């Protein structure tokens, strides 16, 4: 054993089992915050998984599902950690909560639509998560910081993937541009909710990444892509939001029904 090797501290464990073994439980507030980030990632992973074998080309089947897999990895880490506060596993949280108990932002549950709409959602999601994890890697909470530092490197690829498609679709044919603009029109109303501070994030100064503080970086990096795409930054209608409080659009219920049916029909099933 060399002296320079790093030490594993409690709370830096990674898999669900490791997190469950860790002694350090998050406070109720931290757990509620981790649940939000975990739900964002979980719902996005579930949406993206639909594309396997349905994307416009094989490379995209692979790309979108790779991104889904990364998101699922982030979700597992956040949910396992959150669950420690309540004696629940990642599976308990993913499969046995009802719609109003999910606290993802509404953006993530918006339907895939056509490929351009999925790219519009990816564009927003990846630029948001990039800013989020970049800040969260400096969190005073070691577990959140470790998950964020790991996730950041992966979300960087997701962001690049979305940017490339934004460019290709918006500068491609008239039809691809029309669809890209339409996708952005559907998705953009759900941007504002991502950057709302509330009581929970206010109570976690230095631990949570204050949503409002992420807006500047998000606006800057998305504006640069919009300029290259020759698209004006969308404006106008803003959705009511409320996902963080368990208020959701009509799409989440259907998504959960599909995601949870097996676990609920056959509790404890393994294969």
């Amino acid at each position, binding site marked *: 054993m060399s002296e320079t090797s790093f030490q594993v501290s409690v709370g830096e464990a990674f898999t669900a089992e490791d997190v469950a073994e860790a002694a350090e439980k998050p406070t109720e507030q931290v757990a509620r915050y981790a649940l939000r980030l975990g739900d964002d990632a979980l719902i996005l992973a579930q949406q993206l998984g639909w594309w396997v074998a349905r994307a416009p080309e094989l*490379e995209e089947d692979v790309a979108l599902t*790779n991104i889904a897999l*990364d998101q699922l990895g982030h979700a*597992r880490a956040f949910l396992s950690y959150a669950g420690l506060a309540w004696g629940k596993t990642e599976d308990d949280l993913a499969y046995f909560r009802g719609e109003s108990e999910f606290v993802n932002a509404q953006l993530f549950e918006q339907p895939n639509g056509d490929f351009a709409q999925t790219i519009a959602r990816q564009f927003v999601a990846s630029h948001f998560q990039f800013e989020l994890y970049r800040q969260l890697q400096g969190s005073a909470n070691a577990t959140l910081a470790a998950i964020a530092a790991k996730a950041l490197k992966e979300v960087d690829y997701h962001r690049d993937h979305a940017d490339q498609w934004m460019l290709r679709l918006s500068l491609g044919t008239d039809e691809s541009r029309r669809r890209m603009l339409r996708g952005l029109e559907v998705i953009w109303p759900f941007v504002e909710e991502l950057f709302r501070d509330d009581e929970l994030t206010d109570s976690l100064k230095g631990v949570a990444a204050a949503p409002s503080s992420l807006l500047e970086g998000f606006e800057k990096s998305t504006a640069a892509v919009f300029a290259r795409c020759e698209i004006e930054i969308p404006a106008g209608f803003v959705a009511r939001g409320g996902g963080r409080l368990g208020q959701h659009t009509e799409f989440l219920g259907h998504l959960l029904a599909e995601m949870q049916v097996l676990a609920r029909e056959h509790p404890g099933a393994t294969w």
Partner: protein
Amino acid sequence: MSAVAKSQLSREHSLAERVWKIAATVCDPEVPVLTIEDLGVLREADFADGTAKVTLTPTYSGCPAMDTMKADVESALKAEGFDKVEVKMALAPAWTTDWMSEEGKQKLSEFGIAPPTGRAALGRTAQGKVSLSLQVKCPHCGSLNTKELTRFGSTSCKALYSCNACQEPFDYFKVH
């Protein structure tokens, strides 16, 4: 320190080395020419309180091979007579291809997978504005005239490339 305590300490020290050596024989289930040591996934090995303790770090958050590697380390140590085995996953510091050994890179190339070129700090993730990517060498013919087909490949850690010289497609282990 008493002589007995000293000898106990040195025994545990050499056992820790043995734990490392055994764990280091485990291979990546997806890239069977690479050991987890080559990959930089094996971070720490120890022997304490009668237990062999190994720490791994995941490559990508969602990588399903991690569970297999963990189970393989456990069974390798059990087969060598360690009854109590503890395998932990540590997230921090985050894994990077910079930890891949030179030998590992060589083995990858021989296996037909282009090894990561350059260091992660030079990649896009760096906070600086410079985005530098080095040309990837075809593992079949050695040409540098290659192109990226898709950044996402058959596993999280790989991208799909094709060679303009020999026309063969190949996997590239991404700098991460």
